[in-house]
C-alpha cells in the first residue's frame, strides 16, 4: 500500500512539520530574526549558544525542526504549484526537486548538528 501510494507518508510528514514549525518557529523568528538584530534583547554569546546546541536534546529538537520544516515546505510548495499555477504536467519533476531539496537540507542539518555536538 505504501509503495503504491507515498502520499499518506508525505502527508504525515507535512502535518508533523506544520505542527512543529508552528510551535517553534514564531518564537525563533522573533528572537533571531527581529529581536536580536534590532538589539531589543542581547543576542546569546557564542559560547552560550554553542553549548546550548551541543546539548543532545536541543540538537535533536533542532534536527527535527529543520527536517520536518523542509518536508513541510516541499509538500506545500509542490501542491501550491499544482493548484496555483496549474502546471500539473511538470508533476514529477516538481515532486523530485521539492522532496530532493528537503532531503538534502535535512542532511546538511544533520551534518552541522553532528559536528557541533
Amino acid at each position, binding site marked *: 500500500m505504501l509503495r503504491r501510494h507515498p502520499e499518506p507518508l508525505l502527508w504525515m510528514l507535512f502535518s508533523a512539520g*506544520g505542527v512543529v*514549525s508552528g510551535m517553534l518557529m514564531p518564537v525563533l523568528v522573533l528572537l533571531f*530574526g527581529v529581536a536580536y538584530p*534590532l538589539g531589543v534583547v542581547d543576542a546569546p554569546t557564542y559560547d552560550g549558544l554553542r553549548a546550548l546546541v551541543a546539548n543532545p536534546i536541543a540538537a535533536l529538537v533542532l534536527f527535527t525542526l529543520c527536517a520536518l520544516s*523542509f518536508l513541510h515546505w516541499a509538500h506545500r510548495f509542490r501542491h501550491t504549484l499544482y493548484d496555483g499555477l496549474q502546471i500539473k504536467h511538470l508533476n514529477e519533476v516538481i515532486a523530485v526537486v521539492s522532496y530532493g531539496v528537503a532531503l538534502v537540507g535535512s542532511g546538511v542539518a544533520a551534518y552541522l548538528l553532528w559536528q557541533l555536538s
Partner: protein
Amino acid sequence: MEQTHTYGDTPYHPRWLRRRVSTYWWLWKPAYLRFILREGSCMFVGWFTVYLLLLLAALLEGPLAYELFLAWSATPAVLIVNVVTLGFVVFHAITFFQAAPQAMVVRLGRARVAPQTVLLGHYAGWVVVSAVVAFFLLGA
C-alpha cells in the same frame, strides 16, 4: 471496480458550456487569497530553516563567523525579510492549529472533546513551547 448503476443520459454533450478555471483563481475572493497566502507561508518556513542552517554553520565556523552572521542579520534587507517571515510563520501557526480540530477527533473516555478545547490545547502548547525556548535562549 464494478459498475453497479447505469444511466440513460449522455455523459457528454458538445454544446455544453465548459469554462476553464483561470490561473489567477486565487484572486477571485478574499477566502481564496487567504488560502494562497496560507500555502505561501511555507516559503517563509523554508527560508527560516535555511537561515537556521546558516546560523549553525556560523557557529561551527567559530566566534568570528557568528559575529558576522549577527551583523548580516541586522542589515536592512535581511531584517525586512525576517519581519515579513515573522508575520507569515505566526499566520502559519494560527491557520495550522485552527485546522487541527477538523482533522482530529480527540476522545476522553467515550465523550468527544469539543473542537474548541482541542484548539485551545494547541494554543496552550504553543505558549508553553515558546516560553521554554525563550527561557533557554535568553539564558544562553
